[in-house]
């Protein structure tokens, strides 16, 4: 069983490369039983959406 710390690394790397089959299986098994890492995973996904939305968001005019 992977440790939570190892899982945070895999969840981050999953944003940058394709995980191996073994890595994906180990990750899935861990997430099934670990609420903390499940939340961490959702937060990684949110960070990506926030960064991608950063440029396109509506910004108020400073001279309003």
């Amino acid at each position, binding site marked *: 069983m992977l*440790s*939570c*710390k*190892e899982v*945070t*690394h895999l969840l*981050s*790397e999953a*944003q*940058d*490369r394709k995980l191996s089959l073994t890595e994906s299986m180990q990750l899935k098994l861990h997430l099934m039983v670990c*609420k*903390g*890492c499940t*939340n*961490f995973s*959702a*937060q*990684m996904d*949110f*960070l*990506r*959406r*926030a*960064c*991608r*939305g*950063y*440029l*396109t*968001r509506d*910004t*108020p*005019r*400073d001279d309003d």
Partner: protein
Amino acid sequence: MTSDSPSSPRVTPETLAALRTDMLRFATLQLRDPHLAEDMVQDTMLTALNKADQFAGRASVKTWVFTILRNNIIDAIKLRARTVSASAYTAEGESLDAAFDTLFKDNAHWSPATRPVAWGDPEDALQDQQFWTVFEACMAHLPTNTARVFMMREVLELSSREICEDLSISMSNCHVILHRARNALRTCLQGNWFTASGCATC
């Protein structure tokens, strides 16, 4: 003046001037150098005006201009950051790594007090102007080189392979840096937005 239909969006000095604050804020965050950012925004506005007849009106003026700015920023980063050594990333990451380690028990599982909690409905935050202020502050708080790698990946949307090549760092080092940045940003947003109890390390 050309005789386009008045309803289609046009690239004019006025439309560019209206985007200037956004461009400057974006370039400063990416480059961490207000003077260089200022020059780059100036160059981008000139390029945009010179190429105004190439603007086809399919994208918004903002998207079109930011594409030019993005490419200018990537070129500048490639030129300036290639010489940053691997040890520079490690050195500036030490305190972030130490802070990250404190989230775990000795067996490398989450400590009960620091186990990540659900952020409710975080999409609401993306509509909130104040969230973006916190987001920018958290980004600005990342160490310079770490932030550059993170923003190349997530904001400028380069692949990790391109980043490794442009910055001459190994793929595994790139993964370590991105993990470090993501976690620091996560902790910062957690402490300053989602639970807003403040955070000791950011």
